[in-house]
């Protein structure tokens, strides 16, 4: 379209024509122009606001000395431990609960439908509102949780967010609270998609209860469960809000995960390159995840 490039000069005209035809697919000239015009806006958005920042980020975090500095930082070391715990517990506990609860919500009756309406509230309410509320709930002196403990059991609760492990635990529980409903709905849809004939004939053959689950339901759900787990791993790795609002990366910067440490390094201590390096250190996990997920999502047509 922009005239001939250097490479094209001197090539036989006929080859160029077949090349251009193969590029166009079955479309005629005018239609091809339209089709290109239709995809160009998204391609422009992708290149400017996704590809360019990716490349820019890779460039910002490309110095080896950054990583020496980063790995020597005790805050970074505790961040890595937190991130691993957050991933391992946050993803698996949540997905397992979602798997069980999706079975529970398969039961018939108006009561289940009403319960489901309440159950999805954490997902419907914006993250910031709920995480701020949880943050205040866990306040040692005036928080709702300790007030309840005192009123009902006369127990003086601790300052939940002043201890590294209970603060991290609070973040994990908040994440589970917020996202279990979403994944339950996905797995519920997956269970509903299992043809009735299969589960009915399995019941006739005696595969009820636990046996039906192990031999029929779970094998049929396994692929979906795996994709959900992988997706949720990558979503959780990029999660900023739960950590930022529930514990604030505290106490004393002991409660960060990689996503919040990156932002903290870049904007609080004004070392953007160190921030990018913190995020980039997750690449050995991100790249395989992205590759596997892209394959899975493309082939099995599961969409979330």
């Amino acid at each position, binding site marked *: 379209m922009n005239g001939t490039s250097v490479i094209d000069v001197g090539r036989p005209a006929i080859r160029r024509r077949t090349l251009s035809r193969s590029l166009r697919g079955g479309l005629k000239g005018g239609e091809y122009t339209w089709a290109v015009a239709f995809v160009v806006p998204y391609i422009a958005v*992708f290149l400017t606001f996704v590809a360019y920042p990716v490349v820019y980020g890779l460039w910002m975090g490309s110095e080896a000395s950054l990583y020496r500095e980063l790995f020597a930082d005790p805050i970074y070391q505790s961040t890595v431990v937190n991130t691993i715990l957050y991933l391992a517990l946050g993803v698996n506990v949540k997905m397992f609960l979602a798997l069980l609860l999706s079975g529970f919500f398969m039961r018939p009756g108006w009561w289940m439908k009403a319960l489901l309406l309440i159950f999805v509230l954490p997902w419907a309410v914006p993250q910031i509102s709920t995480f701020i509320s949880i943050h205040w709930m866990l306040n040692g002196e005036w928080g709702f949780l300790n007030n309840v403990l005192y009123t009902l059991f006369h127990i003086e609760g601790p300052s939940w967010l002043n201890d590294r492990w209970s603060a991290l635990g609070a973040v994990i529980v908040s994440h589970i609270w917020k996202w279990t409903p979403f994944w339950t709905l996905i797995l519920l849809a997956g269970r509903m998609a299992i043809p009735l004939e299969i589960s009915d004939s399995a019941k006739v053959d005696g595969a009820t209860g636990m046996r039906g689950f192990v031999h029929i339901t779970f094998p049929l759900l396994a692929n979906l469960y795996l994709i959900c787990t992988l997706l949720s791993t990558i979503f959780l790795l990029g999660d900023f809000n739960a950590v930022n609002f529930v514990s604030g990366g505290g106490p004393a910067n002991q409660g960060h995960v990689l996503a919040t440490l990156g932002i903290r390094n870049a904007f609080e201590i004004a070392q953007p390159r160190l921030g*990018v390096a913190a995020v980039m250190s997750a690449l050995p996990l991100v790249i395989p995840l992205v590759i596997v997920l892209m394959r899975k*999502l493309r082939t099995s047509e599961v969409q979330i």
Partner: protein
Amino acid sequence: MSTIAADARLATRASSRAHSSERLRRYLRNLGTFVLSTVIVVWTLAPLYNMVLISLEPEGDVFTDHIWPRVPSVESFWGVLTQGHWYLEHFWRQFANSLYIGLMVTFFALLFGTLTSFAIGRMRIRHGWLVTNAALLTYVIPASFLAIPFYRIMQNYGLANNPWSVIAALVAFATPYAIFVFQEYGRSIPIEVDESARIDGASPPQIYLRIYLPLMAPALVAVGTYALLLAWNEYLYQFLLLSSKANMTVPVALAQFLSSDQSPWNYMMATAIIYAAPPVAIYYAFRRRMTAGLTMGGVKG
């Protein structure tokens, strides 16, 4: 028919001894359902109840130890709506900013999403799979990981503290999902519809406007809701890119409350509830469409 009924009667008589254990089992099952339901309700509502409880406290009564509102007061809601606290002096402006960003993101995600999936799915443009892969890649990259370079780039462009920088970022992250859902939904519309229009002499833009978009209406609603809620609920990019109080959105303003230890918690929670009300209402209004969008094309597994 009668033999079946007789068989059934026989069977019941034979199992009369097993009957009471069956009843016990059903009773235990119902009890289990009841206990689990109660746990779910308490667990789900606790943080939300805490929000309502604190928002109903009169100012100064927040630092107490009761677990129900002693003297419920709507003072803090009134304070938010009339911008009565200095934290809230731009509340309506910020609300409008959130709405503006949400609507723009929705519009552009729908526009770019439909155009792209029309060209790839309906016009079958060659190498369309490359674009689909780019979208897929965007969908699986954590947005927060790109925040620092994105911020730098926006500063270089002179777009810092400009709502369009946020809109650009959110459109980039919302459009991939739109493309998937549209392509998936579009498969249910026979391609012959387009072909016959083409034979009748319709140009691609005419097919797109007159045939494709109307047939895609349900998917447009699902994705539109998704994009609107994504933009309304997003925090990190809005926090980094919008710095002045007049350009801020509600979630960023809400987080500003946390900057001091002596935060007016009742105002903060009232703001949090007012901010949460539109998405919750939209969610429940479009619930069926939303879940249809989530699993559109079937969770085939």
